[in-house]
């Protein structure tokens, strides 16, 4: 099941950042918040079939985060998305030689704030965390990398 797979991936990512000693209930609440935000978008994506995704969408953001690895990065970024009512559609996160890299595809169609406001919050949070957070509409990537 794709949903279980997604829940598992979010949980793994959150534990990965907060460490194994993180409060179980906080993690569970955070994962469920993120998951609930994601779920409607997943249903929408299934209805639209593969074409919707393949064309790149104006209502999706690609959030990319780069910097030195430390606990709390995934949690902080997903917290901002959750608060703005943006669903996470996909997450990919790696750490290579202490360098943290994460890409989140987020659905902003139900977002309670503008992209500019969201980016401001990412900038502030990025400064606090010591990482660079970029947010760009998905259709830019589609235009540049897909024919």
């Amino acid at each position, binding site marked *: 099941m794709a949903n279980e797979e997604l829940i598992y991936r979010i949980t793994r990512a959150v534990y990965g950042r907060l460490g194994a000693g993180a409060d179980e209930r906080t993690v569970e609440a955070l994962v469920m918040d993120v998951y609930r935000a994601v779920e409607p978008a997943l249903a929408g994506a299934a209805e639209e079939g593969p074409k919707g995704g393949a064309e790149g969408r104006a209502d999706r953001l690609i959030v990319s985060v*780069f910097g030195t690895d430390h606990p709390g990065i995934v949690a902080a970024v997903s917290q901002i998305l959750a608060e703005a009512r943006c669903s996470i559609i*996909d997450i*990919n996160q790696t750490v290579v030689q202490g360098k943290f*890299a994460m*890409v989140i595809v987020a659905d902003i169609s139900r977002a309670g704030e503008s992209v500019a406001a969201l980016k401001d919050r990412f900038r502030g949070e990025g400064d606090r965390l010591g990482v660079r957070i970029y947010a*760009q*509409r998905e259709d*830019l990537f589609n235009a*540049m990398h897909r024919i």
Partner: protein
Amino acid sequence: MEYTQAEILQTVRMTEMEHLDVRTVTLGLSLRDCVRATVEETAECVREKIERTAARLVPTVDEIGEELGLRVANKRISITPASLVFDRARSASELIPLARAIDEAAGRVGVDFIGGYSALVHKGDTPGTRAFVDSIPEALASTERLCSSLSVATTRAGINMDAVRRTGEIIKEMAERTRERGGLACAKFVCFANAVEDNPFMAGAFHGVGEPEAVINVGVSGPGVVNHAVRHAPRDAPLDEMAELIKRLSFKLARAGELVGREAARRLGIRFGIIDLSLAPTPTPGDSVGEILEALGFERAGAPGTTAALALLTDAVKKGGAMASSAVGGMSGAFIPVSEDAAMIEAARKGALTLEKLEAMTSVCSVGLDMVAVPGDTSAETIAAIIADEMAIGVMNNKTTAVRIIPAPGKTVGDVVEFGGLLGSAPVMPVNSFSSSVFIRRGGRIPAPIHSLRN
């Protein structure tokens, strides 16, 4: 994940580190319905129309840039050649209210330049265009955002040498009128062979007579992106591989630019026109066409072989862009403005890049002698002769060429003229000191070449 991490990283690197931006979103606007009996009425209509049509241009484009994470450096407007909007003037001073109205309207809607204080005189003039050409120096010296251009030659018409001669004179006058600012007015004026009607770049943008009521044209940049890729390619990679590399990048730049243009057009309710693929440098280190040329294998831009390298670059940019979009237009090639490109400035200072080498390079790039400063005592005839050479390259090769030259008042070879901002700083370059005055004083017309008879 729909995109690989490498793809996402590449886009982020381009937009955040390699200065990839959309150089300009330019609103082309017809003013043909603003023709009135008096210049005051015409000016009022022009002012009203620009302010009404372009009211949302700047905030809308900025918003799109923010959402895409792709900076749109400049928002601009091009208008119907102003000489066509008011052709009744018989003296230069009559036209100044029109120039000021256009400039003020541009200021009010927040664009940095407005182009189209222009006249098409490639085959001759009218009493109205004569007065108009006379008005250009004062119009540019007394305004901030106004840009002007003259079409003095086409492959079909040949070269109007009377207009070329007069252009040399008004360039001198412009320099003199803005003496204390290094001759700044000259930086806002360009003369063309085979002028392009949908060019979004300044100073030469104007809204051609065959264009629709209003249109959004986009100028994409990206020398920084190409420079980075060329620099990181193996130093012994053959040139066909380098061409392929540049072509692939150009494809991506064009696609990103077209996305911005189409989105701006949709939100503004104005039709999308063209995307101009020109690599346009800025004074920022790295964002330089000169550096790309050097990365291809030269100690300095201007060294022997530079023309061949520029030919490769321009052609690869065009091919990549043409594959990416069916709305390619404007100049589409590479710009080599000396003052706006850090590596070109350095090459000129070191003596690697001469005026003659630049002239040769213009035969294979998208424009011509651009933002070139020459000694302040260069005569109007010599400037006209430099223009004539450049126009001949355009006319005979069926391409656009242009001259934007600044005879910097009181300056001589070795001095530097500071314009600031995007216009950068221009090292004063030496000019061949032998006279061309008899040739220029002949006037008349250099007939259209045999290959203009194509029907």
